[in-house]
């Protein structure tokens, strides 16, 4: 069982999405730019892993035509501060692979995207997510007891794709006092494609007051019952590209299927019609 758990953690960490980056046709180039293919890590962030992409396309462009890089998929600007896996599950889950992303160097959409001038911005966002998650799980006790170097280690582990380095610290964030049976509250966000709200985030306990563990189904019933309203299974509940069974315990999901930022990012997408 435990071996299985470890496998799950590894599979989650090393998950990849085959992506094809194509330069936007209106970008001014000296010569034709070939598309660039890359296996993107699910758990990372776009601007963190696309240096090669940028370099590739800059080869065919003149310096004065280059502004901040940004990505879009089928017209939707991709928010870099969402994990890549989440973006894929949310936007392109049931499309054919590889995922085609269009690269832009001009006309940055100020209203839709945040600027990302350098990696420390990504680090700040990442660390703040972790702290928010721990606030929900342990009232911030665990994260505050850690030293700065531990925080740094978390970030470096993510940046350099080092599973062991990251989980050496992260396992502390996954501990809970045994008498509690789980975290105080589960850090989760439910993302919807057809909604004005960016996501749903609420306080939800992993153990009910009368002691039985809450499942994914309990969570959805509580927070977004629409997802499981049984109308010929209209929605898929996707985490890390898979659909866990609704009876999966929420506590286990939070421990094993969270992203590196300790949040359970859940996508609810319309089921494919075929």
């Amino acid at each position, binding site marked *: *069982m435990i071996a299985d758990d470890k496998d799950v953690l590894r*599979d989650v960490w090393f998950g990849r999405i085959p992506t094809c980056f194509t330069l936007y046709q209106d970008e001014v180039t000296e010569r034709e730019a070939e598309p660039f293919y890359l*296996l993107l890590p699910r758990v990372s962030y776009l601007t963190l892993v696309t240096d090669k992409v940028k370099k590739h396309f800059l080869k065919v462009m003149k310096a004065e035509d280059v502004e901040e890089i940004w990505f879009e998929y089928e017209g939707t600007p991709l928010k870099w501060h969402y994990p890549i896996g989440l973006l894929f599950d949310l936007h392109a889950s049931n499309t054919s692979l590889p995922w085609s992303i269009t690269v832009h160097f001009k006309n940055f959409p100020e209203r839709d995207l945040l600027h990302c001038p350098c990696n420390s911005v990504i680090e700040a966002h990442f660390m703040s997510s972790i702290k928010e998650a721990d606030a929900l799980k342990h009232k911030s006790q665990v994260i505050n007891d850690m030293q700065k170097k531990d925080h740094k280690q978390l970030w470096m582990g993510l940046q350099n794709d080092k599973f062991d380095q990251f989980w050496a610290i992260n396992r502390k964030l996954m501990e809970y006092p045994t008498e509690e049976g789980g975290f105080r509250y589960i850090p989760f966000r439910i993302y919807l494609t057809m909604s004005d709200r960016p996501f749903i985030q609420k306080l939800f306990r992993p153990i009910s007051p009368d002691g039985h563990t809450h499942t994914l189904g309990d969570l959805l019933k509580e927070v977004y019952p629409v997802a499981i309203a049984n109308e010929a299974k209209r929605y898929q509940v996707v985490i890390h590209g898979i659909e866990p069974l609704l009876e999966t315990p929420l506590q286990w999901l939070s421990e094993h299927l969270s992203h590196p930022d300790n949040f359970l990012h859940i996508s609810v997408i319309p089921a494919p019609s075929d």
Partner: protein
Amino acid sequence: MVVMAERRLECSWKRHVVEQLKQRDRVQRHAFEEIIHQYNRLLEKSDLQTVLSERYQSDKYDLQNRHDSSPGLDLSRNDSLQQEMAQMRIRHQEELTELHKKRGELAQSVIELNHQIQQKDKEIQSNEAKMEEYQRQIAELEGECRELRGKLQDLEQANQTLKDEYDALQITFGALEEKLRRTTDDNQELVSRWMAEKSQEANKLNAENEKDCKRRQAKLQKELAEAAKEPLPLDPDDDIEVLAEDSGKGTGETSPNRPLSRTPSKRVSGQSPQSSLLGSISNIFGRRPGNSYGSSPECTETPSGVCADVRVPATALHVFEAHDGEVNAVRFSPGSRLLATGGMDRRVKLWEVVSGRCEPKGALTGSNAGITSIEFDSAGSYLLAASNDFASRIWTVDDFRLRHTLTGHSGKVLAARFLLDNARIVSGSYDRTLKLWDLRSKVCMKTVFAGSSCNDIVCTEQCVMSGHFDKRVRFWDIRAESIVRELELMGRVTSLDLNHDRTELLTCSRDDLVKIIDLRSNAVRQTFSAQGFKCGADWTRVTFSPDGSYVAGGSADGALYIWNVLTGKLERTLDKNHSSAINSVSWSPSGAYVVSVEKGCKAVLWSDM
């Protein structure tokens, strides 16, 4: 069962998750991994090709530009050939320049290396020179070292020899010590044995003496008994009468010499004017209270003239060094055979007067300071000397042994005298006291405070007379311990003497006057003085002649003056033989000799021969 169910349930969703993840990876990752990887490699290669082709393009354009100026038929062919050759030439030239450069570099490095080698050679030379220097030093040091080692060996040998010698000496010393110890022990043993023997001898002597005494007593008793038995041949003034009367008046008796001659007593000068038999009896049995002496004042003045054949000395028979220092006191023994002198050298020396000379007989030691006065007891067997060490001592004359030491005074003892019973001693001291000592218990029986330092003492039966620093002569009653009388003179009293019948007291005082005091009337009867007679010290002693007819005294200028008592005039002055002040004079009881002792260690024996 619930657990099992739960576990199976757990397994089911977990397994679902695991399987889903695996499938996802298969679809999304594994399918595309290889392709994307290869695609990227091709991309890289094509980029490289582009870069290279661009570079070649630029070269080609350069070459074309140069060959545009030379037209020709086979332009195109020549062009290509020329291009080729040009390229080759370029390449060769480049190679050549490169080789030249390399050669230059190598030459440079050769020069540098040569330079380095030269430096290294120099270093090596200097090192070798240093090494030579060091080796030389080492050789020197080795030489020194050997020398030192040799010296060390020598010293060690010498040391060893000394040690051996020392050990040998130690052994010898040990042996000698042992010998010494043994000898000392032997010596001790011998000394103790000798002492034992001596004491035995002394005891024997004492026993003999006693025996003798007893014998004599017995003999006398016998004779007395016989005499008592024989009524006839004796005189009317008889012993019987005398024996009956205890008071022993004997008025007008001139005791015959005979009974006296019968007594073996050594006493020469007549003790009592009356029956000398009585006197001798008293003498033998001793310690009879002197009733007989109480009546002495009633008897005539005339001295009994007992044996005292007094002759006024005229010449010095023998001048000799008596002591190693001042001679303070001189005394004849009652038998006139012995002379005792005492001096500042702490000794009392005994001399025998034989054929006009004083032969040294012995010395009495034991005093710790100078001797101030000497007296023999009436038997002549004990000698009493007073000393500056605050004590008086008694020796037996025969064996020169110190018998008693009487301490107790807190000042110099200036005079010590036997009381007439020879069992007690009175001493007078600088500490202004007179002490009465008992010889049997050897303790001081009485101490009287005289008030002034006592220079001389004489004793009668009842009375002790002392002459003092404060010019007084004090008369003490022995039994009552109080002053009976005091007589004041003109100067400090230095000397007292009694005549043979104790009727007259001779005094000498610092006012250079010698006086005779009548004891019955307590008045000065006669005063003697002379032109040059000066009393030299507080202890200058003058003396009666044995019969009381002359008075002799020594002067500070070393002259001996002799006065005639009857006439009161200076009889003779003997001033030739002394070189310093005369301290003391003694007239032998036989009357034949006078001895005077002086400050300057000398003693002179005078006689009239």
